[in-house]
């Protein structure tokens, strides 16, 4: 689930870290996609009349359909995706997973009730809550990706952590996931909404870690502690300390240990056996495969295999699959547009002062600070 309220905090405190771009501006970029997250999206979103798409024998195919079309869309836009699949969840996540399991049981009960009552809206709502990405789903998607010539990586543990490692090693430009904890794991760039449906017309949100740290005025380690305070998947947080207060405390005391010494634990009860150190360690030293040794190759699609798998086994329309293949081949063939920022280096960025209040408070900023700004060629 990521970090509670982090994106809201960033929008308030460090708006310069958030940028929005259109999908087409990402051509030529390699991007690591958190596969589990996007399969979940597909299972929820790719539906007709509230039901998941299924093959003739009733097996779900929403995840395959989603993967097929949205991957083609990325590749058509010149993006090179690599999917990263979750491995075993870390021990510390079991608390969170238990909670999710409980919620699922509740949803199951509510669903039965709704079915009895015949409330369509409620049935739909709880049906979606019951969605779970199974091993079979992942395996099928991997099989499809291989046929499409798209690489994937099996993370030993959390996919976000592995995505972050790929970014850090310079293997890919960004990690694409909705989970904000990719930043906590140290991903320099995070893309959100990348695999959303085109119909939603949602621009892609790009978050730069260096700008986040700069905006929040914290170091990476302090940022990790802040995320734990906000609430992460691995441990509880202190009740009564919200985003603003958390940031204040971190800025002042630099670490959770120091905060614990200074705050009134009567007022802010610290969770029993609070294992923030374990969570911190998970963020600092996650269980990942060495990104340097991961080879990723984007190959040609295997049209016949795809037709066999998707059409014969999963009842996809053959025409559409073959069309999709053509798009993949077309995007693959020929030359690729280079990016200018690949040739020239960015000397400096002048951030826009977005907030209106800012402008009111500091009307005299304009025109100063031209020092060190890159001029054009003379």
């Amino acid at each position, binding site marked *: 689930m990521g970090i509670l309220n982090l994106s809201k905090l960033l929008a308030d405190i460090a708006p310069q870290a958030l940028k929005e771009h259109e999908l087409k501006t990402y051509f030529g970029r390699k991007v690591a996609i958190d596969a589990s997250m996007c399969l979940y999206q597909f299972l929820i979103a790719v539906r007709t009349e509230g039901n998941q798409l299924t093959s003739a024998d009733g097996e779900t195919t929403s995840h395959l359909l989603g993967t097929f079309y949205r991957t083609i869309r990325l590749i058509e836009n010149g993006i090179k995706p690599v999917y990263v699949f979750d491995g075993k969840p870390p021990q510390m996540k079991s608390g969170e997973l238990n909670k999710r399991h409980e919620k699922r049981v509740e949803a199951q009960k509510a669903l039965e009730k709704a079915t009895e009552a015949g409330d369509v809206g409620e049935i739909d709502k709880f049906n979606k809550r019951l969605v779970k990405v199974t091993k079979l789903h992942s395996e099928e998607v991997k099989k499809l990706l291989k046929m499409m010539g798209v690489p994937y990586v099996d993370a030993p543990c959390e996919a976000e952590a592995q995505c972050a490692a790929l970014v850090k090693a310079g293997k890919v430009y960004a990690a694409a996931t909705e989970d904000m904890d990719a930043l906590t794991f140290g991903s320099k760039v995070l893309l959100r909404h990348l695999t959303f449906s085109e119909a939603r017309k949602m621009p892609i949100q790009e978050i730069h870690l260096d700008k986040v740290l700069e905006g929040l005025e914290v170091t990476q380690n302090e940022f990790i502690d802040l995320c734990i305070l906000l609430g992460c998947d691995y441990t509880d947080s202190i009740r009564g300390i919200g985003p603003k207060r958390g940031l204040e405390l971190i800025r002042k005391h630099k670490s959770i240990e120091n905060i614990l010494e200074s705050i009134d634990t009567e007022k802010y009860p610290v969770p029993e056996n609070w294992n923030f150190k374990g969570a911190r360690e998970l963020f600092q030293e996650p269980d990942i495969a060495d990104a340097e040794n991961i080879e990723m190759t984007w190959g040609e699609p295997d049209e016949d295999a795809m037709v066999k798998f998707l059409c014969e086994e999963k009842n996809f329309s053959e025409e559409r699959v073959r069309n999709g293949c053509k798009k993949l081949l077309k995007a693959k063939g020929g030359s690729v547009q280079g990016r200018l920022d690949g040739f020239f280096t960015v000397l400096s*960025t002048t951030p826009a002062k977005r907030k209106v209040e800012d402008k009111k408070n500091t009307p005299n900023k304009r025109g100063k600070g031209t020092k060190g700004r*890159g001029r054009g060629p003379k």
Partner: protein
Amino acid sequence: MFEARLTQSAIFKKVLDAIKDLLNEASFDCSESGIQLQAMDNSHVSLVSLTLKSDGFDKYRCDRNLTMGMNLASMSKIFKCSSNDDTVTIKAQDDADTVTFMFEAKKQDKISDYEMKLMNLDQEHLGIPETEFSCVIKMPSGEFARIVKDLSQFGESIVISCTKEGVKFSTSGDIGSANVKIAQTSNFDKEEECVSIDMQEPVTLTFACQYLNSFTKATPLTPVVQLSMSDNVPLVVEYQIPDLGHLRYYLAPKIEEDEN
């Protein structure tokens, strides 16, 4: 206080027409030495670099460096309200949130003032290294525009290959292929009609038509265009603005995809 005065508002019109295809908005950096603009298009494939030297203006005053972010479409609207031979004066206070364009008509006693809100822009400034180019081609700008326009009908990209004999522009697409070759001319009487090639090494590069077409919007500025190319670096398309400065476009080439 910033003030710049130019007797021909037409020049500004032409400059705006030449960049507003690629950029929606841009920051004008004003200093004692003149006005500079450097900005990449949205997709980060091309870059516009404009230099207007202070001594090219009829009057120029810039007490303190300032950066003015402007919406180019709005600016263009304002300049459309002026006649080509109007005198234009651009004025801004040091800490202003607005810029004023004043047009003075030549024939009659008419002064129009337009005040435009400035924008706060988020801009990346790129360091562009000085490069020795393998090929530098000078040719009539109208000819270049014509070739790019013609070839764009047939394909998405144009291959420019430059050898000692001449320059070849080629493309291919669904209906077939097209080639245009131009040779060096030795007619030195009219420099404006001459094609000259200064070549160290032959170069062949591929570029997207869409951007080249946008660049040729600068054609009305000057009769000669200069193309500079080297292997694996961006193409530079340069238009001189007589007496005032220059407008340069940089364009990243299309790259053959390697196996990884």
